[in-house]
């Protein structure tokens, strides 16, 4: 994987769609609709991406080298030709981890101020 010169924390904080798209791709490569579904599942339907928002984010994430297009198609026979699969780059992986850590710190702070219930 190509080395990217950007530091992960230079891209933080991420917007919610970008974070959730990266999160969806952390399981493995997916195409656009599968990303949309994963994001909706992860957020309990609170973040429902439309194609415009999704591909706008994908365009910017490709430019920032957070994700890349995958050459392989899991099942070409069953697949629509126009579908492209995307996967995380090493930088994308670092960025999503850094953002998750940042959000986790924020959640801990909210817990300490009793804005959220304590963990069991």
């Amino acid at each position, binding site marked *: 994987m190509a080395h990217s*010169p950007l530091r992960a924390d230079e*891209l933080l904080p991420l917007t919610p769609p*970008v974070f959730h798209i990266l999160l969806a791709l952390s399981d493995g490569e997916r195409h656009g609709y599968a990303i949309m579904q994963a994001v909706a599942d992860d957020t309990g339907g609170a973040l429902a991406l439309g194609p*415009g928002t999704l591909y706008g984010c*994908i365009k*910017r994430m490709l*430019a920032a080298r957070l994700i890349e297009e995958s050459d392989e198609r899991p099942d070409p026979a069953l697949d*629509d030709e126009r579908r492209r699969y995307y996967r995380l780059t090493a930088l994308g992986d670092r960025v999503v981890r850094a953002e998750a850590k940042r959000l986790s710190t924020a959640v801990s702070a909210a817990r300490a101020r009793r804005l959220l219930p304590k963990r069991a």
Partner: protein
Amino acid sequence: MRRRHERTLRVLIRGYRLLLRAYPREFRARFGGEMIATFRTSACKRLEARGVLAIPGLILHNTRDWCLSVAKEHSDMTRAFRLARWVATLPLAMLASYAVLRLVGLAVSSVVAAAGFRTLSTPPARAIMTMFPVSGMFAMSAAFVGTALIVAPDRKASVARIALAVVGTFGLVFIGDGLLYFAIDPALWGLCVLAGGAAAYLPWRFRSFRRATV
């Protein structure tokens, strides 16, 4: 899928194709096919699950998404044009700063010479060092750093980057000097400075652009 839904789906896709025309051409060329495929799958699943009752929700959701994303994509294009304009004006800015730096350098070296200090041991005739003694180089270096700080997209440009810019510039200048030892021309001199400055400056600019657009 039932026949009636197939017809509905075709109409919806035709409508969505029309909406896609509002996106910038480059965006449409790259992602249009995928967007239609994604819309088709999404519409298909909703129609299968809820029948025609799914249509108003589908239209509302996609229209809202369309309004927001079309505006965003056009604003991104504007930003890209702004960047391109920056890149185009950079050589002019660098030439102007070169002229200023040259004057400052010569002024400083004259002062140094007037104060009785020797500038450099006799360099070969027509080499850059004759035109621009060490004191002038220092002045030029300081002025270059100042310029770099002023034009840097974020003011937090690190010392290492500035040092790199200066080293890059002077490296290229001396390479140019070596290559053009017997045919030094201020224009070529300026080109070396330009190349060094651009090599140091453009990565800053692109990094900032990338960071701003994710």
